[in-house]
């Protein structure tokens, strides 16, 4: 029901998983689908919430936190990315080099920090070729992009997540999974969805460097300092893959995924064969 359900092609991935005939035009989800890894109640801050509407979150931990924040109609379905990994055929080999996700803001909040210092630290740490994946608005900033290009990074962008059902890159996560699998490591300067995605895709992950500062950062749920305290295992230049992979499975609800018939019912979609 909320346009954020279509961000990153989430609804489209779930429609594919559920064998919806026209998965590129999925039916409306009867509720709010968590659209990014979240240390709050599962909804992005400020989302206009229809009282009593179902909220579909990625993990059991988020469900419990959401309940503690007054949400009463919360169901764990797992992250759409985890469904995508389930559907995507496995790939051989560990990949090569590093994909680096500088912490990004979004349309309403910009980040402030020293990109060059970050680049230097990445170059100093990573041994293979480095791909920098910028958020769409930073990708459009020529000066930011040039900084990374000048450092010898391959600079890419997964596309625009869309707004109000328009201009969505429906294959956002498909492209992201392909890029993650192409590399051996995924790195960021702040714990974010991409780190968990990389781990779920079987790649080493590390979080280090200047975490940067977000405009008017919302500290209700502890902000960046809390990330360090709660998930220390993913911080540092070298991390233990098995431990971090298990954390990713939990955060993305990879072991809680619903079956296609079950998911159709949860999302309020028609049964198979009924359109």
């Amino acid at each position, binding site marked *: 029901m909320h346009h954020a359900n279509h961000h990153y092609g989430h609804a489209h991935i779930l429609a594919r998983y559920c064998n919806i005939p026209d998965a590129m035009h999925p039916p409306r989800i009867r509720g709010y689908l968590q659209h990014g890894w979240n240390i709050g109640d599962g909804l992005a801050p400020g989302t206009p919430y229809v009282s009593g509407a179902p909220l579909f979150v990625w993990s059991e931990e988020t469900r419990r936190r959401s309940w503690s924040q007054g949400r009463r109609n919360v169901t764990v379905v797992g992250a759409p990315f985890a469904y995508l990994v389930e559907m995507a055929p496995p790939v051989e080999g560990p990949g090569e080099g590093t994909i680096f996700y500088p912490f990004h803001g979004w349309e309403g909040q910009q980040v402030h920090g020293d990109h060059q210092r970050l680049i230097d630290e990445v170059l100093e740490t990573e041994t293979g070729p480095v791909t920098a994946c910028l958020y769409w608005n930073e990708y459009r900033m020529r000066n930011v992009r040039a900084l990374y290009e000048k450092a010898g990074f391959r600079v890419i962008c997964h596309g625009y997540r869309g707004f109000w059902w328009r201009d969505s890159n429906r294959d956002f996560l498909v492209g992201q999974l392909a890029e993650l699998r192409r590399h051996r490591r995924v790195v960021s300067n702040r714990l974010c969805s991409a780190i968990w995605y990389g781990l779920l895709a079987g790649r080493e992950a590390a979080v280090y460097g200047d975490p940067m500062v977000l405009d008017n950062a919302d500290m209700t749920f502890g902000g960046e300092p809390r990330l360090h305290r709660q998930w220390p295992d993913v911080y540092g230049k070298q991390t233990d893959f098995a431990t971090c992979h298990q954390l990713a499975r939990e955060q993305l609800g990879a072991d809680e995924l619903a079956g296609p*018939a079950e998911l159709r019912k949860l999302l309020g979609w028609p049964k198979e064969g009924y359109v």
Partner: protein
Amino acid sequence: MPDRPDMAAAVAAPPLTNLIRSGGEMFNWTDTDGRDNQLLTRLVLEHAGPGRTVLVAGPHPDGLVAALAGAGAEVTWLLRSLIDAETAARAHPGITVLSGAFGKADLTGGYDLVVAAGGIQRLNSAEGDQLAAGELLDRLAAAVRPDGALILMHDNQLGAHHTVRLDPGARHRDDAAWHPSETTEGPAARSQLTAHLTGAGLVVDAAYAAFPEPGDPAVLIGGVTLGDVTSPLRPWLRTVLAQAYTVAFRGRPVLSDPRRLVNRALRAGAEETVAGGWLVVAHAPGDTEPAREWHDVLVSDVHGVYTPDAAEPGVTGRVDSLVRERIVNPVAADRLEDRLLELCAAADVRRLRQEIAQYESWLGAGPVSGPRALADLSDLGITADGPVVMSARWSPAEPVPAQIVLVRALWQFAVRLITWGRPHPWPNTASAADLAAILAGMAGRSLADDELRAAIDLQVVIDSAEFGLGPAERQAHRLALLAVQPGTAPLDVAGYHELTEALWRQRYQASHLLAMMEWNEQIIRSRDSALSKMDWELQLLRRTWGGRSLMLAKRAYKKVKK
């Protein structure tokens, strides 16, 4: 109060030689004698036999007295109502009927068996002295001859049946409540009752907790099983007691569903405290000691009486498309339904999927026959080797498709989740049909509408056999089952607590629907506006060269601006 007597009929009636007015008899009064109870009849008959003298003290079901007389016992029946006494004397010419207050009857000769299965509440008459509970018990005990036995049911004022009673004005409507039962002094616990009888010179052989109500017990628990939470019978007892309370309280308004209270008491080993009453079997010491073993548990259901350690076949035959069945297999440490309820409350969807998938594979793919086809999840126990049928009362005459078996069990579980107000990890706006589809999806099955209808029809057949529903009741039941939504109260026992809970859920649902309407209005306005803008753009682009040029210019401007 009975109708005015017909004088002409009274004068013309032959004299009743087997009726003795023992003093204090009540005129223009009648007591209800209750339904025949298989459990009490069986227990009493075990102590009676040809030539044995039996005193039946107070109103009892007519069938019990007839059975005693039929077994050759010399029966004396004491009734305070003269009308009831005359009716009894006429119906049973072979027995002696005493009419009067218990305190005035001459019982000095003693009896081999004294039966007070109706308790002590209806032994005093409105006429004359009112004996206290202790005195009544003493007199009952004194009426037992050496080597004779007393079978007594004593009402538990703390019983679930009193706790959940919702019957405003009952005392003022009850003509027999000249001394309300709750003000009657007397034993208020099983231990107090047995101590009193011991003090009166009897030896207590068995002291059962009786459920659900003292007037019509269906389950007796005693011996070492009573209060033993480690007993292997305990999960099975939950099912048996829930069934007994369902039968007893179906359609009766109550303060709160007694099944919840009793289930909690069972978990706490406190079932004795909430039992409907205590059934005591005691004997007066004599020359011979009674040498017999007492079953810890006795159960009565729609097919007859049985014990878990020696399941007897009971009544056989068919009811509609069902075959009567008697499975008693209390081997599991946990019930599947309890396991699923716990997992639902913990929102552990991963283990829920495992459990449901295991159940689905246990059912198999082909048609299912035998008890497993109709077993509720509460009838199934969990063992290391998978589910087992712990109890069953019905089997299908013809095998049932596995999909229908699965859907019925899961849908019934969904109904319980909603109507019992139990927590679950799925949207709380989901109906029973939605939840059934989600649960079936957990087992990798999809659920078609006609399959759900077939499953509900099967449930109606089972409930009809269990509760003896007529055609109109069946149809009403079917419609009620089809319409289970969030905010639906329990369909069998109408508890005030559960009804207010359902009302709260309905309000929640209504406020959500209102919010949804408002949101939909906003979205429609927003989409209308977006559509209008896009339409305008399209018109401009498609119809005019100027428009095309303008759009090109706009794009160029935006590009330059970046």
